[in-house]
């Protein structure tokens, strides 16, 4: 274990350094993205004003605002762009340099990205989540934050990230066969935005569609942790959802290993 950490922690450090160098860009980028949440905030305010009812499909106005912002923040923690990195390296042939080194292919990506995530967590996640909690305090008039719920949320987020990581590794290895990934990467993120319930909460969908999507692994990318954060799941349901997340993580870990060994037989480095 110590040797393992000694090998891979430098990658984390490199990730932190890399992300630190571009932190201003990153924050500006984030502000551009979060605009969408503010637009939707106003849309929901108008919806609740027009409907005259205090809930919409079981969501109150406050729920909706928390859902919007926490979904966005969760996305920042769980997204993984390893697939793009693998794709790029296949294209430019740098993959060869990675394959000849005595370190594990996926672990280097994982630890590097964890470094970036730790910076995202401190620079964006913590301040924004504090904002969400302050908003909740002012609407409910009391502190609603519970350490237990938050711990479960973080556990769920961690598994979402692992799932996202291994799914993207599987996807990234498709670059071995497809040669260019750019279009597929965009297509994938569009489909995921829908399937993960980050645009339309799954609770708003027709019952049959919703139950199918809840069992699919993609809902765990954003919907499951956010629902846990909002306390929408009972203890038993939350446990079931977390178990399901765990199963999918293991499943995709195994698939990624199989694809890797198959892909390495196929690799052709283009050009010198």
């Amino acid at each position, binding site marked *: 274990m110590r040797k393992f950490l000694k090998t891979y922690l430098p990658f984390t450090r490199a990730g932190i350094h890399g992300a630190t160098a571009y932190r201003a860009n990153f924050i500006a980028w984030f502000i551009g*993205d979060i605009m969408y949440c503010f637009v939707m905030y106003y849309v929901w305010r108008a919806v609740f004003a027009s409907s005259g009812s205090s809930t919409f499909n079981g969501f109150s106005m406050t729920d909706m605002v928390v859902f919007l912002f926490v979904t966005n923040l969760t996305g920042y923690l769980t997204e993984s762009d390893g697939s793009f990195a693998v794709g790029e390296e296949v294209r430019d042939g740098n993959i060869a340099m990675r394959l000849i080194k005595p370190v594990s292919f996926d672990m280097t990506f994982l630890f590097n990205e964890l470094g970036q995530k730790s910076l995202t967590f401190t620079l964006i996640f913590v301040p924004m989540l504090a904002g969400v909690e302050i908003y909740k305090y002012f609407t409910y008039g009391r502190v609603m934050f519970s350490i237990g719920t938050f711990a479960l949320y973080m556990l769920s987020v961690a598994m979402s990230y692992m799932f996202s990581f291994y799914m993207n590794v599987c996807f990234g290895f498709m670059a071995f066969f497809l040669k260019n990934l750019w279009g597929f990467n965009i297509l994938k993120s569009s489909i995921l935005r829908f399937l993960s319930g980050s645009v339309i909460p799954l609770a708003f969908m027709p019952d049959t569609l919703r139950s199918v999507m809840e069992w699919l692994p993609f809902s765990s990318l954003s919907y499951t942790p956010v629902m846990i954060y909002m306390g929408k799941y009972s203890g038993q349901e939350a446990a079931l959802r977390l178990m399901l997340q765990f199963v999918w993580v293991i499943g995709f870990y195994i698939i990624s290993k199989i694809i890797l060994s198959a892909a390495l037989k196929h690799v052709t480095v283009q050009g010198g």
Partner: protein
Amino acid sequence: MCLWGDFCLKIFEIFKEVRRGFRLFRIFAAQHLKKLMEYKVDFITGACSFLIDQVVNIAFLAIIFGGVESLKGWSYYEIMFIYGFSLLPKGLDHLFCDNLWNVGYGIVRRGEFDKYLTRPISPLLSVTVEMFQVDSLGELVVGIALIITSVTHIDLPFVWYDIPLAIVAVLFGMLIYTSIKIILASISFWTKQSGHIINMIYGMNDFSKYPVEIYSRPVRYGITYIIPFAFTAFYPASYLLRHTDPVFSILGTVIAGCVLFAIGLAVWHKGLSVYESAGS
């Protein structure tokens, strides 16, 4: 008299330059299409993903309107019309002027801007016509489809001159987008890189897709008078839907486009004068 002559000459020169720009654009677009054919799959998947996003957005709108009849007095199909209209100026700007993003993202930082300075045409024109972003055809197609779908469900107070007015509004709406990008891309002449600033401000265009009545007063003022994204979609679309305030809605779009473009050109030229290439 002499001043008038100068003015005419200047206009003539601008006209010549624009015509030359279009010719160059055709040549560059042909090159770009060839490159695209090499990555056909990327293009098709990119277009599909855009389509999926839009379908999901519209489905979401439909879900919202399952619970309410109107949003601050605007019906489902009226909002769909505004949404569709917003895609047209955005799509056109995306089609013709996408390379301005790259100015902010690295063309200046890597010193690649040098090559535009050596060409016998204006660097702004040259950098803009270089890329032809075919992905944006998806935006235009979806926008037109949404407009057509929505007008079949709305009693549009239509008169013949609405068509030229709509075209004018779309073109000047595009000019608003392009000018904002020119201003923000120019910042990179001082700071080397401004892509993230472009993204930050550009992200506000989402505000244009819904009626301004839903926003609080400061936001409404902001998207009308400071960064006038509301003129790219909501105001002209609301004129076409209800014939309210034509002077403000259409002329406002034209004025906003012209003012921003003038600022854009001024900032761009000021920026060019301080541009230094990357040393290596």
